[in-house]
């Protein structure tokens, strides 16, 4: 069993395009569904709030670790949004790393999230609840949509 998540995905777009989508705070916000307060700066905390339907009550908080242009971008965070009522300062965050490589047809992105061995049990339970809440919200959205269109 591994304590990390690894993903690899290829894009039909140049490295510079993918780099911008990852590290420009407005572009990042577009696809990640988060409204960030300002640009990413290595060593500094990035703040904002989640805009994903059903999770709008959650804050975004991450500390940027590294920005190596068109190669590597990483930050630490507490996975998947932060409940403003909870103090996370004593919990060890996980590390998210994006690595970019030029390929024949575009760009290869390698994503790693590691450090899950330090995530406390109650945080995992919260994730289950939030996950469930997300689905409940999605079902509600669908129901409303169907109700309006029928």
């Amino acid at each position, binding site marked *: *069993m*591994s*304590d990390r*998540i690894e*993903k690899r*995905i290829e*894009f*039909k*777009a140049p490295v510079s*395009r*993918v780099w911008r*989508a*990852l590290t420009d705070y407005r*572009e990042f916000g*577009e*696809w*990640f*569904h988060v409204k960030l307060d300002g640009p990413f700066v290595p060593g500094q905390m990035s703040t904002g709030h989640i805009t994903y339907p059903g999770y709008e009550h959650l804050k975004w908080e991450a500390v940027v670790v590294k920005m190596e242009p068109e190669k590597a971008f990483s930050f630490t965070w507490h*996975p*998947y949004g932060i409940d403003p009522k909870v103090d996370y300062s004593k919990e060890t965050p996980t590390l998210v790393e994006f690595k970019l490589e030029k390929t024949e047809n575009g760009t290869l*992105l390698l*994503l790693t*999230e590691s450090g*899950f*061995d330090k*995530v406390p*049990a109650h945080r*995992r339970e919260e*994730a*289950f609840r939030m*996950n469930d809440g997300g689905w409940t919200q999605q079902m509600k959205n669908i129901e409303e949509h169907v109700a309006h269109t029928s």
Partner: protein
Amino acid sequence: MFAALGDQTRLTLVAKLSGGESYSISQLTSDSQLTRQAITKHLRVLESVGIVRCTRAGRERRFKFEPQPITDIREYLDIVSRQWDEALGRLKKFVEE
């Protein structure tokens, strides 16, 4: 939890216990090169993260596998993994459009 499982002896113990049967220390020591004390120490580590439960049958201690903590972590990683799949799917659309 990951640290507890990151050891060959403990993995072997878990593999043996995962059949669901409960075992005594003697049974677990018999097919190992290690001493009773060493096996006991490893069992304590597994017990401390909740993967192994110790029960007493008379004067004998028996050890049993407890799958729930592993299931919980796996489900949690599945959720985070799925959220990344969705986010990266949106990123793909975003940069390719």
